[in-house]
């Protein structure tokens, strides 16, 4: 188990190193001169030279990368060119809003997805199954930003209940969560359905049925415990997709999270903030995957015992 854990951590670190390289490449190909971005177009050459020296932009590229990496490891992602604030602090201040939204959406999508998938498997090859299949594919096909916009319009014109954007407690969370959760719910529902139908054909399920257990109990207790395992991994991997959805959802709902921060950074070509938010997103994904790997190993005795033995 320890060796397994160590391998996963080394892999996570490698992923972050790769990400840092990719973000650094993005920053390096930017045509805009950061010194000009900071000082303004009218700055004299001396000021620009000073800024370049302060930022280390006069150094060779690999030294710039090494410095960037060294500071990033120590939690220092530099200062935003536009906001003139510490990037790490900016991300930390925006993180809670994103975390609340992501966790709520994850929970809703899992509950909805598992319910739809289980229902479809229970009524395999019936009209219910067909309807749920089409519904889940429809969920996957709705553009996140359009769904958010439509919910806002419906609320503004007919419902008049939820706040039209911003983060102000429980009621403001409902529409963004729905917007973000629907796509993943459709996806999870398909996966669980496939796994459940597979499991239902296996010997241990037939044995359980042969014992005379009720169909509901066979499905929910015996088949489900096997079919849920792959879903854990998928949900972990889907975290990257969730964060992409977060950028759109936060933009539509004016949600003060990291997604909107990244969006603004990209529009202002605020390089340190772009690199910081992308790296932080990758960090979150690595942590999520690590958590899922451990959970999976712990849930599945075949891995748990093999790794310990």
């Amino acid at each position, binding site marked *: 188990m320890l060796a397994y854990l160590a391998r996963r951590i080394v*892999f996570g670190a*490698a*992923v972050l190193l*790769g*990400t840092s390289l*990719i*973000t650094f490449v*993005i920053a390096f*190909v*930017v*045509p805009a001169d950061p010194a000009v971005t900071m000082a303004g177009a009218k700055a004299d050459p001396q000021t620009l030279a000073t800024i370049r020296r302060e930022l280390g932009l006069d150094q060779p590229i690999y030294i710039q990368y090494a410095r960037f990496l060294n500071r990033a490891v120590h939690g220092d992602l530099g200062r935003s060119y536009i906001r003139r604030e510490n990037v790490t602090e900016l991300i930390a201040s925006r993180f809670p809003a994103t975390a609340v939204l992501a966790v709520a959406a994850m929970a809703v999508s899992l509950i909805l997805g598992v319910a739809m998938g289980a229902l479809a498997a229970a009524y395999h*090859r019936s009209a219910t*199954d*067909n309807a749920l*299949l*089409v519904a889940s*594919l*429809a969920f*996957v*096909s*709705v*553009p*996140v*930003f*359009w769904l958010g*916009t*439509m919910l*806002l*319009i419906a609320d*503004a*014109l007919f419902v008049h209940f939820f706040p039209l954007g911003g983060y102000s407690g429980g009621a403001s969370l409902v529409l963004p969560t729905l917007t973000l959760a629907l796509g993943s719910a459709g996806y999870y529902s*398909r996966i669980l359905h496939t796994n459940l139908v597979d499991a239902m054909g296996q010997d241990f399920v037939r044995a359980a049925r042969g014992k005379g257990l009720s169909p509901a109990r066979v499905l929910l207790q015996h088949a489900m415990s096997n079919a849920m395992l792959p879903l854990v991994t998928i949900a972990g*991997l889907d975290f*990257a*997709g969730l*964060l*992409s*959805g977060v*950028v*759109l959802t936060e*933009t539509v709902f004016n949600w003060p999270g990291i997604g909107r921060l*990244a*969006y603004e950074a*990209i*529009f202002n*070509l605020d390089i340190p903030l*772009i690199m910081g*938010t*992308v790296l932080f*997103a*990758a960090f979150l*994904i*690595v942590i999520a*995957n690590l958590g899922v790997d451990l959970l999976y190993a712990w849930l599945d005795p075949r891995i748990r015992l093999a790794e310990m033995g």
Partner: protein
Amino acid sequence: MKRGRFPAIEVIGAAMVASLVLVALFAPWLARHDPTRAVAATYGDPGRPSLAFPMGTDELGRDVLSRIIWGARISLEVAIAAAAVTMTIGVAVGLVSGFFGGAVDFLLMRFTDVMLSLPALLLAMAFVAVLSPSLLSILLVIGIVSWTQVARVVRAETLSLSTRDFVTSARALGAPSARLLLRHVLPNVLPIIIVMAALGVSGTLLLEAALSFLGLGVPPPTPSWGRMIEEADIYFRTAPWLALFPGLAIFYAVLGFNLLGYGMLERRQRT
């Protein structure tokens, strides 16, 4: 046993895709108005849907229906071309990785894992902003961030094919690797590639729409579904139809490709 429902889903998907392709091809004949010109008398304010303009007009007096019809052209072009980039990278990585194995496989798959760990949209936004939006940069960027899933699936398929008897015997007869790969493995991976391509287009359609919505799409005045929704944003109380119809168009297109791809996938898994 009852005949599966999946062929039906495939057929519906194929019909939806075909209808889109027809609309895109015949846009100049189907659209009653120039999508980039003011044609309504209500210039300055969005116009309600009416007999003359079934989906209304936007604040510049342009006919929404005509813009959506022309938008099909640009959306499909971008999505299909981006999917082609996606498939090229994904199939190449997957074939090489699965066929040669060993260190090549290890390195390529770890690189794939790194790319999978990145939020695709965020990465695409950063790339497009930096390269400045153009048709070419958008195509390339969407391709670069979306190939990972294809590579994984193709690799798995190649891996299982490489150990099959017909490949082993061709190898024993002295066929070079390139020939083995292109003549024996690739044709057998093709069916799953076609499925992934259909699903891939639905992904690139969504990504293109999202980039357009964020102002990072194909530059104006080319009508684009995603940007139409973004432009409708300030009129969401007074003219909700401006956001409604382009979104329905995206939804229809993505759903069509998803039904097609998913239907084909399910049938494959059955046989």
